[in-house]
């Protein structure tokens, strides 16, 4: 049986990696928005385009790093019942349920906003609707879950 310190350290690390993932996801969204705004003014100078592209890739690599770390923790927990219980903790499950609710509401809100905007500005591409709705939903889920889970 694991001692409580090991379990608490495992739980703390899980929160730390999740926080890292949420912040890198937030950075990714910010860079995406900045890139879209800059591109809407016309063709970008090559130095700005490459700077934004490199920043975007850096946030993607960061996200992947934190996702790999989280999945490794999950794998480790699969072999230990005490650690497995930490991941399937009742409060965590309750927070996940609430985070899904926030994600759903944010996606609906985003789609409603796009509908209002489309009255004044014609939207021709589906990706213009799908991308912000997806990013809003995913962002709301991760941010609210991290917020509820933080100490």
């Amino acid at each position: 049986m694991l001692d409580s310190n090991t379990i608490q350290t495992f739980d703390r690390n899980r929160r730390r990696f999740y926080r890292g993932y949420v912040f890198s996801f937030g950075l990714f969204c910010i860079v995406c928005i900045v890139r879209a705004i800059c591109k809407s003014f016309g063709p970008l100078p090559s130095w700005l385009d490459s700077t934004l592209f490199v920043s975007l890739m850096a946030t993607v690599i960061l996200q992947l790093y934190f996702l790999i770390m989280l999945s490794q923790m999950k794998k480790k927990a699969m072999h230990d019942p005490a650690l497995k219980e930490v991941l399937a903790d009742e409060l965590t499950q309750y927070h996940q349920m609430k985070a899904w609710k926030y994600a759903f509401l944010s996606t609906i809100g985003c789609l409603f906003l796009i509908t209002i905007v489309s009255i004044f500005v014609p939207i021709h591409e589906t990706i213009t609707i799908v991308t912000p709705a997806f990013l809003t939903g995913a962002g709301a889920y991760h941010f609210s879950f991290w917020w509820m889970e933080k100490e």
Partner: protein
Amino acid sequence: MAGIELKNTIHVHRAMKEWTQEELARRVGVTRKTINTIENNVFVPSTILALKIAKAFDARVEDIFQLSNHGKNK
């Protein structure tokens, strides 16, 4: 149900056993934060978890958890 709150005596039982929140969390298989939120009436546990907590203290579930009519005559 409006006005009804779930009170608990986890703090008292922990003190009697000289257990920390971490120790209780380990015994019932949850995180320390879960025990902390239950103890402070922030989170209402499921029946399974309430029974596990009672079993850990070797007490009846109604000794640990009680309903209280908040703001009404008790």
